[in-house]
């Protein structure tokens, strides 16, 4: 990445106030990490405790 681009990115992230007012907020460089953090949990296999709980819900509904 060029120095110019890097400076631009830094400058942009230091002035979030302007972006907020536009409604369209630019996503910072770490934004993908936040999605990845979330998705990594979504993709985890469901622990057995949840399957047990779901089967108990069945009984309670009858």
């Amino acid at each position: 990445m060029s120095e110019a681009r890097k400076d631009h990115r830094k400058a942009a992230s230091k002035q979030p106030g302007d972006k907020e007012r536009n409604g369209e907020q630019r996503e910072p460089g770490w934004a993908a990490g936040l999605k990845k953090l979330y998705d990594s949990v979504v993709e985890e296999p469901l622990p057995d405790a949840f399957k047990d709980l779901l089967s108990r819900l069945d009984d309670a509904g009858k």
Partner: protein
Amino acid sequence: MSKDRSGDRSGDSSADFKRELTQVIPHLRAFARGLCGRADMADDLVQETLLKAWAARDRFEPGTSMRAWTFVILRNAYLTDMRRNRFRGEYDETLAERILTAPADQEEPIHLADLHRALLTLPAERREALLLVGAGGFSYEEAAQICGCAVGTIKSRVGRARATLSAMIEDGTVPQRSSGDKAAHRAILQELDQVSTGNRKAAMR
């Protein structure tokens, strides 16, 4: 649409509800993990949410977003538990093993664990706003409904949360394990009163 107010739903609609509820569990787990630092506590929170959602299933309108509906319940349960000081803000270090691949425009990879720790230092209302919009993919409008506040408020919270995290990451001031979590916990408690006011209204509808 006819509503049966006398009590039990038909078996079919209960089955539909349960199927939809099952489908959102991974998302509830992800949201909860972002809200509180420990995976086991996050899962406890999700279980509590599922039980509450099941108990309130007559109030769910078929065709509306199960994810948004259950997120409101989870959020309320979280805030209530925070009040009881159940979450100590301990951090789950298993996530520390995961390293984020560097985005195209960035030289240094961000550790997901660092990002999560930084996230946990945010005030609760900004953290949840950023999680909903920036991680969960909700629109500002949907996030505002979940949090029981104005769209402009959500935009402002997301903007502030992003600014804070960007500054922490660029300045290298992402907190270390324990101190950061204590700071996170303090910040959460400080803002809890303000957050829970709007939130209860949304849940009681």
